[in-house]
């Protein structure tokens, strides 16, 4: 799970920083003059180490963005509309409030497992966030649902089951109640 990996990286980096601050704080018990030239040398070394870590981080992650790739075609398209305070998901475009109402309370959309699914996400009113949660309640993927724009979110689901959609963008008093659902089989 990527969240846990990020957490471990955070703990290690924050731990190193805390250790450095603790070491420096304790060093004041034994006050003495220090050679600033050697401190500057250490700073130069630190500069290159931090820069190398950051460049490595950029190199390892920048190519893994979740945005649609032109050379990849989805096997399934799901149309999504967010509106205060529910999501409507459909196999066909949702163009008006009647479509939205019908699909909000209709049978859940069926998505084939293993196939690349594209969610075409938009909003009929304010900004929402279309956040897909796995059957075991982990945040798998998300994109914003914005009025006037269609955001294309592509996900490949390997695990069959019922998936939930929550809104992660504050959209009003019913924000925490807003949801959608679809099945992967």
């Amino acid at each position, binding site marked *: 799970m*990527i969240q846990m990996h*990020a957490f471990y990286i955070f703990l290690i980096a924050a731990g190193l*920083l805390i250790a450095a601050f603790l070491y420096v704080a304790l060093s004041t018990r*034994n006050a003495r003059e220090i050679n600033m030239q050697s401190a500057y040398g250490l700073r130069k070394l630190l500069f290159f180490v*931090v820069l190398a870590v950051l460049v490595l981080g950029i190199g390892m992650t*920048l190519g893994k963005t979740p945005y649609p790739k032109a050379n990849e075609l989805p096997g399934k398209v799901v149309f999504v509309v967010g509106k205060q305070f529910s999501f409507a998901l459909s196999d066909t475009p949702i163009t008006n409030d009647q479509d939205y109402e019908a699909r909000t309370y209709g049978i859940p959309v069926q998505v084939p497992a293993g196939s690349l699914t594209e969610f075409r996400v938009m909003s009929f009113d304010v900004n929402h*966030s279309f*956040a897909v949660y796995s059957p075991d309640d982990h945040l798998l993927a998300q994109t914003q649902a*914005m009025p006037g724009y269609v955001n294309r979110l592509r996900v490949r689901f390997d695990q069959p089951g019922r998936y939930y959609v929550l809104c*992660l963008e504050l959209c009003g008093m019913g924000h925490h109640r807003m949801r959608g659902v679809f099945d992967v089989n």
Partner: protein
Amino acid sequence: MTAAAADSGLWSEAELAKFRRMTLIWGITVLLLLPILALLGYFMRLYQSGAFSGMRAEWFYAVLTLHSLGMVGTWFVGSMAGVSYLLLKYTRPNLAVSKFVYVGTLLGVVLLIACTLGGLFGTGWYFLYPLPLFAQGVWAPWATFTFFAALTILGVCWTIWTLDLLRAVAQRYSLGAALGWNYLVGKPGPELPPLVLITTVSLIVSLSGFVAAVIVIALFAARALGVNVDPLLMKNLTFFFGHDLVNITMYLGIAMVYELLPSYAGRPWRTNRTVAIAWGAVLFLVMFAFFHHLYMDFAQPTWIQKLGQICSYLLAMPAGVVSIFGTLALVFAARMKWTLSSTFFFLGILGWGIGGIAAVIDSTVEVNFHFHNTLWVPAHFHTYYLMGVVLIILGFIDHAGKELSGLEEKPALSKLTTALLLIGGYGFLFMFYWGGVNSVPRRYAIYPQEVIQGTLYARIAVGFITLLLLGILLYLWETGRRCLKALA
């Protein structure tokens, strides 16, 4: 500091006395707002823990809006007042402007309280277009109007304050000198205190943010008149403004540390080529780092998203390598005078660093895909706010209170205060981080079944916040007493 200001020849004793009084008034106001706004945060975590099951969720979102805007505004004015006071040594900020801004800020705060607690206006601090216009019957048009009136008053006042401080800097330093360009090219020039350099960089960024805010408010007004407004443009402008405001508050806090920590360490901290390059880089990079707020807007061109990640990563360099390392080098084996103020400055830089690490991780597009708008976000910004710039500003108020009242601190009480703030603060933050790792959304009044673990995390957080509040109360008792004596 006040002796140095008196020795500078820029001020008469009578003028300085008036400025000190104004600084104390700002400080006491911040100390009054702090517990109120902290209690609002306490209320929110209690609400999320299920303690107020009979209360409508609209209250949660209204309190969320007031808490977030109130905290951001309070620490912005706190840092501006602190920097104004410290600049007295080098230049002449205008006292009348400070007074005018104070009155305007109070008026803005009253209006914000009226529209949120009185009118249940609940859009969050960022009033993301077009949510204020889709009230669903919760808040009335007067609340929306009052909210924007408050923002306009605050924006105008703070812009004037920013311009006045820039004017004061410009009276003594040219733009190039204030940005340390002579250090960059290795030419002789006036010695530039880091306080002036960082303040100049921050104020330029601040002005650009306020311009964006003005455009946002104007476009809301245009929308009310029937003009079509692009939601993606509004989002970019909103986050440019919000990101700038939060960042410059931190930078102004760092400027205070550069100015004051040397007096506790007994060593100088001067501008040199590296420091000038670092803050020049900040001025450039911070303008583009805000794109990381829009990673989940897939309609935004991909190259902009990647630029956002690169700038966010690189922004860690001047902060991490120069300011944090500079703090460590300054304190290492120094004859350090550890007081509440110097401890808060030191710990504040640490908190800024820890929050920065979490922020850089979240600024990775691939990671943000799983963390965006989860509790990881309040986790990292509360870290560099609460355990970062807030500690620094509280350290400054304590420093000024002691300097102006002559009352010394009680070391045992200071240690207890620090321990409570650290345990309560980091415990409270850990529950946010853990919530983010476990996919718990932020800004939820009530956690639905899929993320019900958020309720338990909120309950544990409430315990830590109780310790944090005790620490804040102890601090207020001691520092507030000194500030009031100095004011009397």
